[in-house]
C-alpha cells in the first residue's frame, strides 16, 4: 500500500499541475512583456513557475508528488504549444527534483510555511543552475547578476512559498483535500 502513488493520487496531481500549466502560459506573456527591459524586474514574477510542486505536495502530502507535478505542468505547457517548448520540460524536471528533495528532507511530514519557502528556494536554486548552463548568466556583470538573483529569490519565496501555502489553506477550507487524504482513525472509531 505504502509504495508508490495510487491512480487517484497521480491523476489529481497531474490535473492540478496541468491547471497550473495553463496559468504558466498566461504568465509567460506577462513575463516576456517586462523582460526586455533588462533590469530583471521580470525576475520578481519568475517564482510563479515553481508553484505547482509545492501546491500539489501540500494537497496530497505524498512522496514524489512535487516532482511529478512540476514535470506534468511543464508537459502541459509543452503540449499546449508554448514557444518555450522543450526548455520548460528540462527546467521542470530539475526544479521539481529540488523541491522534492526539500520535502524529502522533512520526511514528507512537515506542511508548514517554512517548508514551503524552503522548497520554493530550492526550485529557484535549480532554475539558477539551469540558467548558468543554458543562458550563460555567469557572464553578466556582477551588479546585474546580483540584482537578478535577489529578484528571483524574493519572487520565488513570495509565489511558490507564501502564495502556494495560502492557496492550499483556502482549498482545504473547501473540503476538497479530504478526498485525497487518508481517513483518520477517529473517523473509523465513530462507526461504533
Amino acid at each position, binding site marked *: 500500500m505504502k509504495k508508490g502513488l495510487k491512480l487517484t493520487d497521480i491523476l489529481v496531481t497531474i490535473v492540478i499541475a496541468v491547471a497550473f500549466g495553463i496559468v504558466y502560459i498566461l504568465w509567460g506573456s506577462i513575463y516576456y512583456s517586462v523582460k526586455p527591459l533588462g533590469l530583471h524586474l521580470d525576475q520578481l514574477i519568475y517564482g510563479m513557475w515553481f508553484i505547482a510542486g509545492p501546491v500539489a505536495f501540500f494537497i496530497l502530502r505524498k512522496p514524489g508528488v512535487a516532482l511529478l507535478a512540476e514535470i506534468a505542468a511543464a508537459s502541459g505547457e509543452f503540449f499546449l504549444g508554448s514557444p518555450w517548448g522543450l526548455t520548460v520540460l528540462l527546467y521542470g524536471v530539475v526544479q521539481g527534483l529540488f523541491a522534492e528533495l526539500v520535502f524529502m528532507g522533512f520526511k514528507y511530514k512537515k506542511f508548514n510555511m517554512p517548508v514551503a519557502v524552503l522548497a520554493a528556494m530550492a526550485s529557484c536554486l535549480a532554475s539558477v543552475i539551469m540558467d548558468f548552463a543554458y543562458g550563460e548568466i555567469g557572464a553578466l556583470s556582477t551588479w546585474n547578476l546580483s540584482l537578478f538573483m535577489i529578484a528571483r529569490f524574493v519572487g520565488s519565496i513570495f509565489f511558490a512559498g507564501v502564495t502556494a501555502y495560502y492557496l492550499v489553506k483556502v482549498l482545504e477550507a*473547501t473540503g*476538497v483535500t479530504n478526498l485525497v487524504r487518508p*481517513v483518520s482513525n477517529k*473517523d473509523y472509531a465513530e462507526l461504533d
Partner: protein
Amino acid sequence: MEPIVSVEKLRMKFPGDESLIFKDLSLSFDQGEKVLLLGPSGCGKSTLLQVLSGLIPNSIEVPMKAEKLKCPSSWGYVFQDPDSQFCMPFADEEIAFVLENLSVPKEEMKEKIQNHFRKVGLNLDHTSIDTLSGGMKQRLAIASVLALEPEVIFLDEPTAMLDPEGTKEIWDLLKEVGKDKTVIIVEHKIDHVLEFIERIVLLNDDGQIIADGPRDTILSLYKNEMREHGIWFPGVWDEYIQKYAPTREHQFTDGLPLLDVQGFSGFRNKEEKIHVEELKVHSGEWIVIRGENGAGKSTLLHALMQFIKTKGTYELLGTPIKIVKNPTDHMTFVFQNPEFQFVANTVYEEIAYSLRIDKRPQQEIDERVRSLLKVFRLEAHRDKHPFQLSMGQKRRLSVAASIVIDKKIILLDEPTFGQDSKNTFALLEWFEEYRRRGITVIMVTHDEHISKNFATRIWTVKDGNVISDENIAQAGFVETKVKRSVM
C-alpha cells in the same frame, strides 16, 4: 445458492457528518436478479451502489465497516454524472480503453467498438467527446460498460438526462443485454424499469431498508410508504394532479413582450447550432422546451442568456440585447449540469451568494436562505460543500441559488432530473407560484407530465431549429403559430 453480491451489517459515515448514513444495513443479491433500489433523494442509494461494487472503499476512501462484504468480480458501473467518467479525448478511444483493460487483441477492437456504438444507438466514429450532448455522453458511458461484458451491472440513474425516446431505447437495450446478468438499478423514474425488474428494495430517508421483496408485492402493499417518502410509483402523477390542479391560465397578455427574437441564431465554435425564426415571450408564461438529445435546447438557452455568440434580432423588454447592460439583471439561469454553477464553499453560502453581492442586510439574507433551505430540503446539509451533495440535492441547490433574487424570467435547463416525487412537486409548485406572480418560466425538460400539466406553451427543438410553438394556455391570450424550420 451463494449470493453474488452481499453486505452484512454495513456501517458507514461521511467524515464530518453527524450521523451514520448506514447503520447495520444488510442486503444480498442472487445471480441473475434484477433489482431496483428506491428511496428519496439523498437517502444514500448512490453511496450504497458504490459500496456494493467495491468502489468504496477500494477507490474512494470513506470510513466504513461491514461484518461481511462480497463484491462481484466482474461488474460494470454507469455513473450519474455523464461528464466525468471518460478519460480519453475521443469516443472510440474511450471504448478502446476498456477493451485494452480486458486485453482484447488490437485487431478485434475496431469492429467491437463499432458494435458497441451501434448497440447504444450512437452513430460515431473518431468523434471528440467534448462535442457530444449530455444525452449522447450517457449513451457512450453505457457503451463502455457493455464493453466490459460484466456479470453484474450497476446502474445509477443511467437515463436521467435522456429524452423519452432515448430512455425507452436504453431500457430496451439494457433488458436485452442484461437478460442473463445481475442488474442492480437506482432510478427515480421507474416507468420503463418496472417491467424489467423482479425485486424492489425500498429505503427511507435514514438509509434503512423499509421493504424488500418481489416487485408486485411491494408496489401493492407499500403504496403509502412510497407516497410518504416521495418515491415515484405508477400513478403518482394522477394522484398529484387531482390534488393540486395547476390552472395554466395565462392572464398577462398586456404590453410589450419580454423577449422578442427574430431570425436569431446561436453559434458554438463558429458553427450555427440553433436557429429561431420568430418567437415572442410574454410575462406569466410557462414555456417548456423539448426535443431530442443534442437537438440544441441547452444551446437555445445559452443563446438567450448571451453566453454564446448570437446573430439576429433579440430584444429584451423592448431593448436590443446588445444595449442591455446586464441581461442577468432581468433573467436568471439554472445550468444543465448543476456543478457548473457552484461558486461557494457551503450550501448556505451558495444560496446567500447573490444576496451578499446585492448587499442585502444580514438578517434578510439569513431569513431568505433558511426558508429556501427548508423548501428544498437541504437544511441538514447547510455546511457541506455543494459537491458533496447527492445528485438530486445538487440540482435543488442550483435552482435555489439561482432564484433567490426575483428576476422577470427564469430559464432552467432540466431542473427536475434525478428528483424524487416529493421534491419534484415542491419545485414545480414553487415555479407555478412564480408564474402566477407574472414571472416567466422557460424550462428545458424531457418530462412529459410537466408539459402536459404545467406548461402554457411548448416549443419543440429539432436539429438546431425551433420547429413548433404550441400555445396551450387555457384562457386569455391565445397565439398559436407553427413556424416552419429553415432546414
